[in-house]
């Protein structure tokens, strides 16, 4: 039994559907499509898959996916709670734990949905037993604090105030992610760069956040395959070896609305998974060559740059200037365009891009790519991992 998961497993296959405003097919159909393409990318037979992982708010049940794959002996299935974001990298932890303890050998992690054309679940829907989540939203919805942007804006407003930061920093992030996407044929914003004038011309959705501070509703899906590092060596692609992976929930955590901590401009769940990832890998922020930072909103990037130690608390709004998040910058970030400009797939496309960065196949490939950080979650329990080479 290993006493550490460091370098024991690797991501060996990635797959995705096209990203669009209207897929025209079911979420299960999208799921099976990207799962299939991930397994084929790994060069494994479908029968090799004996584990499946997704995260909550997923309409495609594990056994429905298994039936599509013709799985005869599925020995591990798991679903991470507090979905839409926090689960994307958490799935990796589930898979690694199962593989390193011999519960299964090869896990596919997936997420696909019709985020643009499909009917979104309504937070006011009440059915089944009374849940803590329903009680929770009752502290916000009656006042019209509804949806992720309104919550993100609350943190952002306080951040801008405390650090005397301007929305120029948010513009910088939005424009940089768009630039990356404009070069990515798979992105929703392929060949559609924008200027800061475009950014400042976009309407407010929830002040201080504008339309272009927000990610883009998308239909589509991604999947990836994890197996042991041993087995990975025999497969077709250079493996993205998992140096460390962490899941974290911190003091006074709510689902999105963690407004009651002494500070709401620090995110202890990010700080927790950063500490864990660095400790277990023996690496530090200086070792990270590129990152997929979960970016449902521009300001989430600021918060993570600080929590993961790329700059000091309160300084991220300066760090992002001067092209530091660009391909040639200090920390090439969200090189596919991220949730903001490639596609909003609740974080999973940040994982697949991190794998491409290690393989050296990103459309915006930085020269140095020994270690890549990928994160997920914003205001919910978070997760993060560090990928490296074989």
């Amino acid at each position, binding site marked *: 039994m290993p006493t550490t998961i460091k370098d024991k497993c690797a991501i060996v296959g990635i797959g995705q559907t096209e990203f669009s405003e209207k897929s025209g097919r079911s979420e299960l159909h999208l799921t099976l499509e990207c799962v299939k393409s991930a397994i084929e990318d790994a060069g494994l037979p479908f029968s090799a898959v004996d584990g499946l992982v997704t995260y909550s708010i997923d309409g495609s049940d594990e056994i429905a996916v298994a039936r599509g794959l013709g799985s005869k002996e599925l020995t591990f299935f798991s679903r991470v709670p507090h979905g839409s974001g926090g689960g994307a990298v958490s799935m990796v932890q589930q898979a690694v734990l199962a593989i390193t303890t011999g519960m299964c050998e090869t896990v596919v992690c997936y997420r696909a949905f019709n985020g643009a054309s499909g009917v979104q679940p309504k937070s006011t829907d009440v059915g089944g037993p*009374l849940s803590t989540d*329903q009680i929770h939203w009752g502290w916000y919805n*009656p006042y019209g*604090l*509804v949806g992720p942007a309104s919550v993100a804006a609350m943190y952002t407003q306080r951040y801008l105030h405390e650090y005397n930061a301007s929305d120029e920093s948010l513009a910088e992030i939005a424009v940089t992610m768009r630039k990356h996407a404009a070069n990515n044929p798979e992105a929703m914003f392929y060949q559609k760069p924008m200027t800061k004038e475009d950014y400042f011309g976009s309407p407010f959705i*929830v002040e201080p956040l504008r339309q272009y501070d927000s990610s883009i509703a998308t239909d589509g899906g991604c999947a990836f395959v994890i197996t042991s590092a041993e087995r990975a060596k025999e497969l077709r692609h250079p493996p993205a070896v998992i140096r460390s992976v962490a899941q974290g929930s911190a003091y006074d955590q709510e689902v999105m609305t963690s407004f009651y901590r002494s500070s709401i401009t620090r995110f202890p769940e990010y700080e927790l998974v950063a500490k864990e990832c660095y400790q277990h890998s023996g690496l530090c922020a200086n070792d990270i060559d590129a990152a997929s930072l979960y970016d449902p909103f521009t300001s989430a990037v600021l918060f993570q740059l600080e929590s993961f130690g790329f700059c000091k608390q309160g300084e991220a709004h300066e760090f992002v200037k001067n092209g530091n998040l660009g391909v040639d910058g200090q920390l090439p970030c969200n090189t596919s365009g991220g949730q903001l400009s490639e596609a909003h797939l609740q974080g999973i496309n940040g994982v697949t891009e991190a794998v491409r960065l290690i393989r050296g196949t990103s459309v915006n490939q930085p020269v140095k790519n020994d270690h890549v950080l990928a994160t997920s979650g914003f205001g919910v329990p978070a997760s993060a991992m560090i990928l490296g080479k074989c």
Partner: protein
Amino acid sequence: MPKALRMRPVIGHDNRPWWDRIDEGELPIQRCCSCGTLRHPPRPMCWKCQSLESEYINASGKGIVYSYVVVHKPAVPGYEYPLAVGLIELEEGTRIVSNIVGINPEDIEIGMPVEVSIDAVDDEMNLPLFRPASR
């Protein structure tokens, strides 16, 4: 067609006492019977001493704007936009999310003093709303 109403809170054992006091015109804060720690939103267990015994005190209703947002969209039926939603820090130390009313949203500032009034927002629901303090 009947006028759309604001979204309702789902009421259960853990939040009913709070909403009942709102209907009586008070702004309650949950207090641990064992160690006296105040907490909001209400929940069954004290995070400091793990006591399951709690009671409610009435807040003074005075506080400051700790943070705020101005919602433009998505526009949900039952609300008027632009809609100011504040994170209010009460002078007792707990925070609460509510609307900031009686002021142009453009004039709201972090740190400004506010005070509560319990208002009937429709025939069926009372909410604690905050407006600039008179002092």
